[in-house]
């Protein structure tokens, strides 16, 4: 996809190897992956206008070439229900970002403002990720989110590119697979939509091998027939110079 290449070029020109969230979501949309409605805003007024257009409640997230881990910089505010909450959140995010910068001794670039996104309804949380292994190359990881991935490490891998039956096997072979069938009276989840997201990520990485790491975390999977949404997307690409290490 040409748009993706352009985004990667811009990032590298700015000296960053991570892709801003709005850019990541542009790329995802280009591959037919569902994401919550989003837009960007450079001022509090613009944020309010955009928020109204998307519809409340919304989420605000910092967009800066200097901030990879947005929460660490106080750059994420969720479940904002009206204009005044958005206005307040915008100011707070900018202040925290400045403070984060001065603590680190850097001038944080704030010119891009924030991402405004629809505060998506809670679905079954899953993680879809990509890593590039030195021996095997690109591999895709799938697992249920939250404690399943954090504590139980209940995840499964396939090399990219993969077939649809690989994707279906992955979804079926994690230990907690039954949760997607619907347990305790819940209807079954939209596994077809989930498989589509996995296949689209596989295609995206196949076509853009400069991606070295990718997280769709969380991705929400809804009731059968209601789809799936990548709520937070992170993409890291290969730098032209040796990659600087960054901690969580």
């Amino acid at each position: 996809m040409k748009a993706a290449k352009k985004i990667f070029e811009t990032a590298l020109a700015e000296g960053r190897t991570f892709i801003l969230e709005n850019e990541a979501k542009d790329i995802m949309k280009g591959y037919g992956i569902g994401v919550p409605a989003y837009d960007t805003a450079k001022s509090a007024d613009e944020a309010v206008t955009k928020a109204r257009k998307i519809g409340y409640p919304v989420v605000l997230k910092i967009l800066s070439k200097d901030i990879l881990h947005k929460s660490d910089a106080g750059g994420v505010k969720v479940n904002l229900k009206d204009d005044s909450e958005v206005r307040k959140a915008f100011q707070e995010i900018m202040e925290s970002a400045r403070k984060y910068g001065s603590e680190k001794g850097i001038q944080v670039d704030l010119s891009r403002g924030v991402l405004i996104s629809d505060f998506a309804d809670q679905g079954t949380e899953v993680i879809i990720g990509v890593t590039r292994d030195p021996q095997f190359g690109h591999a895709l990881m799938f697992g249920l989110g939250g404690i399943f991935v954090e504590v139980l490490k209940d995840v499964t891998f396939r090399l990219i590119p993969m077939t649809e039956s690989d994707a279906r096997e992955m979804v079926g072979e994690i230990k907690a697979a039954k949760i997607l069938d619907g347990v305790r009276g819940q209807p079954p989840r939209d596994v077809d939509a989930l498989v589509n997201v996995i296949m689209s990520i596989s295609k995206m990485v196949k076509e853009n091998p400069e991606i070295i790491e990718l997280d769709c975390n969380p991705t929400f999977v809804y009731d059968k027939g209601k789809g799936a949404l990548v709520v937070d997307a992170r993409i890291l690409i290969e730098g032209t110079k040796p990659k600087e290490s960054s901690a969580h």
Partner: protein
Amino acid sequence: MTVSLGVETEGIDFFFNAKGVAVYGASATPNSVGQAILQNFIKPQYTGRVYAVNPKYTTVLGVPCYPSLKEIPNPVDMVIVAVPARLTPRVFEDIGSKGVKAAIVISGGFSETGPAGAAIEDEMVATAKKYGIRIIGPNCVGVIDTQTHVDSFFLPEYRCGRPKSSAVANISLVSQSGAFAAAISDWTSQLGIGISKIISLGNKCDVDDDDLLYYLGDDPSTQVICYYTEGYDREKGRTFFDTARTVTARKPVLVVKSGKGRRARAAASSHTGAIAGSDQIADAAYRQAGVIRADNFEHMFDMAKALAMQPPAKGDRVLMVTNGGGLGVMTIDALEALGLSVPKPSPELENRFKSRLPAYCAWHNPVDVVGDTDASRYDAVFDEALKSDEYDAFVVGMLLQTPSLGMDVTNVISNYQRQSGKPFVVVSMGGAFTTKAGEIMELMGTPTYATGEKAAVAAGALVEYGKIRYGKEFKQTSETEKR
């Protein structure tokens, strides 16, 4: 031939079928590497010609010895190099001038020792490329071919047994480790497992895992391909994966990979990068490519023997037939733990069993034909079970300590196996008599194991490979059906 994958099989045949072999660095010193290798080629089973190369001697162990290859009056197909690393660039000029296309470099002192050794290795490889010489090694024990008796292992046979080929089916092993290659040669010679080739690759300066995988995939004397690896060089995991995908549908490939420890990437910036360990990715790659991973060598050879001798299963339903109840229960436990399906016979089949077996037999799964049986009850169970088509694979307990069971049971088992085309594995548990009986069973083509657990691992591999071979045609029992 050059395959699109970047696999290069040109010249590999010479390593196994060399009719004229020269040992560069042949030595008159007892217990030296240069003597031990030469010794392998003066055994009567090797029917090709052998020459020694060493300016110090005119003959070694009665073999004519020349100062260089040029003086050898006849053609040479392969050279085994056992000289110090620093001499190898010159030796390869000699090899090239003679027009030899294959060389096994046994010597160490190359890239495994650091930059100076790596420079010598590069020089050697450049010379080899210039002349189109394929290299196995350096820093390896080389190859054993049990049919042509090409044998570059410098381990004397009285210390390290050599396996034999079997008339039924044969396994080939590629090992990153020379020590393991030798130990497996010795071990399989004791076990009597049929082996076609053992290859130790050492530094892999030219011939690598992928070349051999492709070559062995087309080798008619290899029925199952086994690998031992400690990991892959940069991007070589991916090329192995790509090559394996072209082989596993026609021939089973098994791997033992060490280094299972989880090593999260220190520099990972994403969640996925922090969780993913290389071994998990290797595990996924094997599964995706249809490579069966074994936990250890014992499991690998239990599996390989079954896969070499039996057809893969077309479904996962296994019937255990036994003349000992305890063995039946233990084996069923092991089968279930491996995720195989062990369904009870349908009421119709149960009635058929009842009509043909004494009332004190048990006809669930396991079917217990009990301790006073002779071969006829096995006959009846196989007959009915195969007619019913309720099972895809059979594990047969054959406890020959009982006086009533004759050796004719081996005939019954192998006849039903052959007629049905379904896989059978046998458990013959006990001492000297039963071990001999197991050997006879294997001569008749049915793999036999000393415990139910080992037989279950073997049955598991036949089912696993069935999934790989038959894909969507394979009949998988769903979790709900298993209950």
